């Protein structure tokens, strides 16, 4: 019953946050691209929280933008609120977070896909891959359509053998009662992939009309206009607030007395859930000394009354969920619109991937997003763009793009996945990045625009603007390093006003800027340069002020790069290396790291094993034991 449905360069299976970035990147780079989704109404759907960004994640969104991705632009067009987080801390951990209008976010993204050249968006449920001699040639849908392509990117999200669980109830389903993808999971196992079962969950939604906001605290957006994309010039000023309330002792009592009906505790759920995302019942059991838990009320959009009850993720039965709402100040009379649920799904063990996100098992097959064991829209999008780029480069016969840990959070994310694997849904945290100070929210463009341009995702016009900005920063830093500030009465007055001690002798403006209490604005009063824009001023201030710390991290990066440059052959026989610990042999055999640096990050491989690898490498012995 199958039919030949056409030939493409790249096929992307799935149109969630990973899928859309993969499809857009591939099409924009010139590959004839097909994007297949189970349901066209689910393009860029947000099945859980209505927000984008936050610490680490927000930086990923900016990185996506610098690489030519879509997420930043799309949220800039469709948010209802934006905030800069961690403003009281250092520049490295500042991050934007936006509350999204979910429906608008979807329709804007869908429109972008529909109007992108080289890109075909189509509804279709992929059940099998066409694999010949270990090489992926295409996909087959449930309707029998056989599509052929050089590269295939799988982004199946939580659809893969998805199962929703609410209390005692369980049924096969994708997110939010979407049709699940069952066959593909079995097919992947047939192909030899190791699969794991993960679990995630979502809280209930309630009707805004029925919330008593008077007993909650308001959480407004920032007054200053903000945007994720470096290119955004129009800002949304009309913002909606979120609200904060807390669980009560009654909530805890109620949950404790209904624990036996929770699938997590009755043993019905087999999947591994993330520790950072526990359900409310988990929180109450594990942290029973905490008297109350925060509950944030987040609107799901401008044209809906649905409100997301953040902090109340649960898989308790629907009737218990309704009773829980009654115990929370402000929600006593809240009408439940959708019940919270837990969802189990299949993911592949990500150590089966090369750092390019191509699978080791099947050539030409790439995977991204929750299928690789991550959690979060941003994490999915970050992998999506890399998978899309590399799927396209495969078609073009070019080497894959791999971002290293000092270049981007996306690099940290992918390196962690393919090197260490994960035994729970993986979430990015700033602490996962060892070069956090280099991976800032403010410098994502400086880090990645060059690469985005080189691979063909950043148009020349934008690149020119970027080069100009970069040059202005360099010029202003240079100027401040040579500009001497003299202890004039005027200068001393400015210093005193800024709460700083007076100058005893002349000092360069750069050195003065290193004083913790001195900002670029203060310097500008002493030695104005009207041509400097705010974004340039911000860079100048950060780069000068924290130069000491930045240099320290750069030195570490240098050391890391040395280890990365010691390449290991893909097909090295670790079992033939004398002296490696058995565990190290097994792990290295499984991961097949491409460099000693990557090998050193494989869990179970200790420094002694690395010394031995280095000894072998130094002695040229590795050549002898390649298979």
């Amino acid at each position, binding site marked *: 019953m199958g039919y030949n449905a056409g030939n493409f360069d790249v096929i992307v299976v799935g149109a969630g946050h990973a899928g859309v970035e993969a499809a857009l990147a591939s099409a924009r780079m010139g590959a004839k691209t097909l994007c297949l989704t189970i349901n066209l109404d689910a393009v860029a759907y947000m099945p859980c929280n209505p927000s984008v960004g936050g*610490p680490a994640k927000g930086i990923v969104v900016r990185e996506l933008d610098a690489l030519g991705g879509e997420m930043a632009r799309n949220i800039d067009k469709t948010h209802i609120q934006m905030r800069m987080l961690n403003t009281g801390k250092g520049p490295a951990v500042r991050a934007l977070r936006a509350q999204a209008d979910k429906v608008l976010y979807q329709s804007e993204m869908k429109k972008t896909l529909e109007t992108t050249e080289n890109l075909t968006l189509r509804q279709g449920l992929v059940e099998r891959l066409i694999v010949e001699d270990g090489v992926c040639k295409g996909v087959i849908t449930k309707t029998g359509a056989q599509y052929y392509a050089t590269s295939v990117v799988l982004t199946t999200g939580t659809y893969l053998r998805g199962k929703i669980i609410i209390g005692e109830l369980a049924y096969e389903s994708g997110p939010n009662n979407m049709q699940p993808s069952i066959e593909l999971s079995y097919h992947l196992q047939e192909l030899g992939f190791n699969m794991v079962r993960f679990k995630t969950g*979502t809280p209930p939604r309630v009707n805004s009309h029925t919330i008593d906001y008077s007993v909650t605290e308001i959480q407004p957006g920032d007054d200053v206009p903000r945007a994720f994309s470096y290119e955004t010039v129009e800002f949304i000023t009309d913002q909606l607030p979120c609200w904060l309330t807390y669980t009560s002792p009654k909530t805890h009592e109620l949950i404790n007395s209904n624990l036996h009906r929770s699938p997590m505790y009755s043993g019905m759920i087999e999947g591994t859930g993330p520790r*950072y995302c526990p359900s409310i019942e988990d929180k109450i059991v594990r*942290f029973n000394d905490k008297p109350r838990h*925060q509950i944030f009320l987040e609107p799901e959009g401008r044209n809906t009354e649905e409100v997301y009850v953040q902090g109340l993720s649960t898989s308790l039965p629907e009737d218990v969920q309704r009773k829980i709402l009654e115990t929370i100040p402000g929600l006593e009379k809240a009408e439940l619109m959708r019940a919270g649920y837990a969802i189990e799904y299949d993911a592949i063990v990500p150590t089966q991937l090369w750092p390019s996100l191509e699978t080791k098992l099947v050539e030409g097959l790439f995977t991204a997003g929750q299928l690789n064991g991550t959690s979060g829209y941003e994490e999915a999008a970050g992998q999506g763009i890399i998978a899309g780029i590399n799927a396209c480069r495969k078609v073009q016969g070019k080497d894959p793009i791999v971002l290293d840990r000092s270049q981007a959070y996306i690099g940290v994310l992918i390196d962690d996945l393919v090197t260490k694997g994960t035994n729970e849904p993986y979430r990015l945290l700033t*602490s996962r990045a060892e070069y956090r100070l280099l991976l800032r929210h403010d410098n994502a463009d400086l880090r990645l625009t060059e690469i985005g341009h080189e691979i063909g995702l950043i148009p020349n016009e934008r690149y020119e603007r970027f080069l100009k900005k970069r040059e202005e920063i360099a010029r202003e830093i240079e100027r401040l390093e040579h500009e001497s500030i003299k202890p004039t009465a005027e200068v001393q007055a400015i210093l005193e006003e800024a709460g700083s001690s007076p100058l005893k002798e002349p000092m360069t403006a750069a050195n003065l800027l290193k004083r913790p209490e001195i900002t670029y604005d203060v310097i500008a009063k002493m030695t104005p340069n009207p041509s400097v824009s705010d974004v340039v001023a911000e860079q100048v201030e950060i780069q000068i002020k924290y130069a000491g710390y930045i240099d320290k991290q750069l030195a570490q990066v240098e050391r890391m790069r040395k280890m990365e440059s010691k390449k290991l052959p893909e097909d090295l026989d670790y079992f033939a290396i*004398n002296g490696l610990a058995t565990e190290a042999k097994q792990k290295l055999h499984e991961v097949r790291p491409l460099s000693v640096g990557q090998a050193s990050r494989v*869990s179970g491989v*200790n420094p*002694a094993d690395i010394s031995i690898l280095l000894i072998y490498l130094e002695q040229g012995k590795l050549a002898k034991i390649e298979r």
Partner: protein
Amino acid sequence: MEYDTIAAISTPMGEGAIAIVRLSGQEAVPIADRLFKGKKPLAEVDSHTIHYGKLIDPKTNQPVEEVMVSVMRAPRTFTREDVVEINCHGGLVSVNRVLQLLLQNGARLAEPGEFTKRAFLNGRIDLSQAEAVIDLIRAKTDRAMNVALNQMQGRLSKLVGHLRQTLLETIAHVEVNIDYPEYDAEEMTHGLLNEKLQFVAEEIKKILLTAEQGKILREGLSTAIIGRPNVGKSSLMNALVHENKAIVTDVAGTTRDIIEEYVNVRGVPLRLVDTAGIRETEDIVEKIGVEKSRQVLKEADLILLVLNFHESLSPEDENLFKAVKGMDVIVIVNKTDLDQKIDMDRVKNLAGDYPLITTSLLKEEGIDRLEQAISELFFKGGIESQDMTYVSNSRHIALLNQALNHVEEALHGIEMNLPIDMVQIDITRAWEVLGEVVGDTVSESLIDQLFSQFCLGK
């Protein structure tokens, strides 16, 4: 196993002691068998057994040595290779003869530390254990042996582990403020951070203090005997050596370039530095003067200053006191068997807080008291080595110093009012560096800490 078979003397040598010559490698048993004559050939004995017999020189067919031979087959051995240990008489001559026999019959002389290196390369031990083993091999006294053993058993690991946990909790706290800015955890303040870091800095300093002693235990207390000619310096040295059995050993382990002398005085290893040098300084005061002698003394950990009971104090004696000011000194007034001509009140005055011992080396009197004084001085009134963790490894000392630097930089950052996430860079480095001491730098434990310490979620 592609390695050849290596041999070396694996115990420090001393007159009358038992010495062990160790063989490791595929040919260890066959090589030993070529020389050994016992009840049955070593090839037929069970692993991890010990056998009495004689070593026969195959060339002359003459018995060379009476020995006990242990056979330990791979992989349950120190190097994970076949190991044979030959226990023989500890005399320099006999032990060397055994070694020479093995070398003539197919073994290769091990390089310094090569057994450990093999153990390491065969995955037998990790780096920090390997370093402790190296120290173990070099340990010159029983007490030093204990320190090395303790280190292996993880006393240092435990101590450092506690500090790491404190740092980890602090880091997790900072992290939760960063990654969950809206979470209702107490904000980590500069004040709070300062308090924690001061504590860690103090603890690292304490560990480092023991490092000095650890180093001394391993290397011996470098000891100089000084005094005017003919006060009995040579007699004093001979007495110490005779009483305590001089240990003649080689620093590098197997090569015989430099010979040093060690004596073990009640658990305190004394390294009689540059014995020839000390003898040449017989007339140190007259010949090179106080300035120069100060230079020589600078290297010493302990000074034994010898005066003559039978002569009155000279300006040279007084100059000696000046030269050793501020150092660890024991004053010895020798020749109490002769008439007193020295002004003891003046001596007591000059000696001040230094222990003052009177001896008659000729009559072998007072040596006990001297030993007691040395022991007391070293253990500073009852520091029991068993309860202490001596950091006896220079790599560990370097790492601890590095960690301390990072903590101090973090403290400096706090003082400068830098953002807490910047300060944290140094805290994390300190945590990582301490991890290198115990061989654990897995950052995943931070994530674990984060989620076990705080209740986070959607």
